[in-house]
């Protein structure tokens, strides 16, 4: 392992290829969409456009097996690709289909399901959202109450899902539903793929704390879903979901984003507009954060090494998620301090990639407050930091 540069030199040609492609493919508008991203989602249309460009290049889903459209890249190449996309300010497409559903379909799906769904996911023509959480079932996901009752060749779905990111832009949703109320909670859950155009589905978007709309509540009233849209066996949905949750937590590369945040902090440190430069603790807090990012990067590399060796990272993905999200929050705090009052304006229109006008906040602070606000959600979604610490206590420490 090479300590600070994880990529041996023979990958440099690959990196240059990626760079050249990005330079060519990213329009100024797409770059603006990337720059003005304040959460895991960029401007929807920009993200969708970018996915279609990637797909045309054959890079629509690098992590998938080659036969389904994957690139065949090894772990290093995938890391380089992600890193270069981030550095080039490429926007983030809606990734629930590619990152979450895709691996599940490939693992649990029938041939027919794979043929029906995978092409639309990789091309970006189909946009998928995730229907797991419910108003009463957050951390205690297994208590979910949305039911699916078998009626001939269909399930009839009733209930509601919440925190369904991007549901208002999606034409498909993958859902956990209760198919057996008599057994213990985890054992009565199934995994359904539902066309959002089915009658009986209502989508209610609502604004997040930063004022933008990404989240929705989705209501199901006698929604009829063909049984062929069951992924995995009936009542095996929890097993399917657990695989997904692990996939969501594992193999993430938090340090790519964190290093970008650090570069921004370093630029700000010497900038005239740094509102925190009179804070005697500021430079040291940036340095300590940098050291912690180095430690996380080396930990990601250790895990990547053990993945290459065929190991399952298991509960260690909880360690990376907790550290990565909490470090992201620290970076966001340092940035908000540097921005001071100049981060307080909230001009929603500025976040649009079409917007090229004046901004009340200085250019480098336009997204700072929204990023700070949204950073707080990163330790809540995808399994709260408390749930992750519980997993570590149980599975790593054996408590």
């Amino acid at each position, binding site marked *: 392992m090479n300590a600070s540069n994880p990529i041996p030199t023979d990958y440099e040609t690959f990196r240059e290829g990626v760079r050249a492609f990005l330079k060519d493919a990213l329009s100024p508008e797409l770059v603006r969409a990337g720059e003005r991203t304040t959460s895991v989602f960029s401007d929807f249309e920009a993200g969708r456009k970018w996915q279609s460009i990637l797909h045309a290049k054959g890079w629509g889903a690098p992590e998938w097996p080659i036969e389904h459209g994957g690139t065949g890249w090894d772990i290093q190449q995938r890391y380089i690709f992600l890193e270069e996309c981030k550095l080039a300010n490429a926007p983030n497409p809606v990734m629930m289909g590619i990152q979450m559903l895709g691996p599940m379909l490939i693992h649990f799906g029938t041939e027919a399901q794979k043929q029906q769904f995978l092409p639309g996911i990789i091309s970006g023509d189909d946009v998928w959202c995730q229907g797991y*959480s419910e108003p*009463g079932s*957050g*951390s*205690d996901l297994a*208590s979910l109450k949305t039911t699916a009752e078998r009626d001939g060749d269909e399930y009839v779905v009733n209930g509601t899902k*919440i*925190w369904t990111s991007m549901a208002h832009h999606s034409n498909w949703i993958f859902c956990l539903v209760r198919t057996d109320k008599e057994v213990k909670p985890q054992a009565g859950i199934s995994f359904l793929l539902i066309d959002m155009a089915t009658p009986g589905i209502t989508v209610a978007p*609502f*604004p*997040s*704390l*930063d*004022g933008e709309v990404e*989240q929705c509540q989705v209501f199901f009233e006698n929604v009829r879903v063909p049984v062929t849209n069951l992924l995995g066996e009936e009542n095996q949905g929890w097993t399917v979901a657990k695989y997904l949750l692990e996939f969501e937590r594992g193999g993430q590369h938090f340090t790519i984003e964190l290093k970008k945040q650090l570069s921004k902090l370093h630029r700000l440190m010497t900038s*005239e*507009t*740094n*509102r*925190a*430069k*009179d*804070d*005697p*603790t*500021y430079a040291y807090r940036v340095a300590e954060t940098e050291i912690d990012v180095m430690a996380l990067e080396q930990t990601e590399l250790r895990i990547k090494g053990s993945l290459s060796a065929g190991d399952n990272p298991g509960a260690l993905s909880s360690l990376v998620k907790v550290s990565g999200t909490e470090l992201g*929050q620290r970076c966001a*705090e340092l940035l*908000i*301090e540097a921005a*001071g*009052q*100049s*981060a*307080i*304006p*909230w*001009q929603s229109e500025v976040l649009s990639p079409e917007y090229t006008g004046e901004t*009340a906040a*200085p250019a480098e602070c336009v997204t700072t*407050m*929204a990023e*700070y*606000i949204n950073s*707080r*959600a990163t*330790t*809540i*979604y995808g399994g*709260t*930091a*408390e749930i992750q*610490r519980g997993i570590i206590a149980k599975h790593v420490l054996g408590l």
Partner: protein
Amino acid sequence: MAAQMTEDQTLLKDAAERYLRDSYDFNERRERIAAGHYSDPTQWQAFADMGWLALPIDEDLGGLGLGAREMAILAELCGQFLVTEPLIEAMAVSHAILGNSAQKESLLVQVAEGTLIPVAAIDEAGEAARLSPTTQLTEDSGQWRLTGSKQWISAGASATHLAVLANSATGLAWVLVSVDAEGVSREIYPTHDGRGGASFKFDVTLDNAQIIATGEIAQDALTAYRELAMVLSSAETLGATQAALDTTVDYTKQRIQFGQPLASFQALQHRMSNMLIQTELTRSLVYAACDAADDGHADRGRFARAAKVKAATVGRKVSQEAIQLHGGIATTDEYIVGHFFKRITALESWVCSKGEALKEFMALPAAQH
């Protein structure tokens, strides 16, 4: 733990709290702000009618002649009820800037009546302007002129008048200009704390009467304004912090996960205990800073800065924890707790950041006792 208050202070607090609880609804506030009304004229008139605007004005000028402790009582309630009207701004300007001017009589009566809403305009693009602005007050053949620009003025959208900090040939100066005056341009924008901000450009010809203070008096007014702003922003932060904690305690008692209320989970209990401990410690320091200011204590500057550092630190931590302990619901705009977090964040750097306050604290030696 009950704070020790005089009977009059208790009356003030109880009446103000009752009013805001009855008349300052969170959902109405959201709708109003969404419609671009950052300040509600009816509320402002009510504040005037209840004497809140006269509170920091000397008795011989028709005010109530009260001090930092009473202003802080209102500021704390502003935090608790997420008041977007510029009450702490107006109180701080009245007390520390206008109150020392030659024109104070005519100005303060308008402030007390609610017709003149003063906000201080200090910030400029460069941070150094907070202590020495580039905005200039110049004289040319007996005619005064104000030129320059101010940015990111919190509640600048709601002000009728600005107390503008400028530099002049004789040092600092405070100038009072109407936001509608010729030569003043204002750009209003929404803000994450719902208060509405504005940037200003000035190229204004002034009456002598608009020059509120110059030279040493202006410098003293800046010091007084900054220290009062530190104390009042700490008090407002404290109010929002306590409210975030209370909301969290209530919510976790009701929210059931894994068959039990969140509040029954020990890891969360200990974190809420920490939130309480830190909030109470902050309270003690904020009230002490008020008393030090009101007593003219030799260490009042240290106390103001200590309160600022403590309130900013604790407010950030407690409001972050409040969001985390709620979970998803706290990340929605419809739920109140995140709004405490946003207001606390805005207050962190208002007039003086925690870092500046800490640095200044370190430079101020303690008085002997």
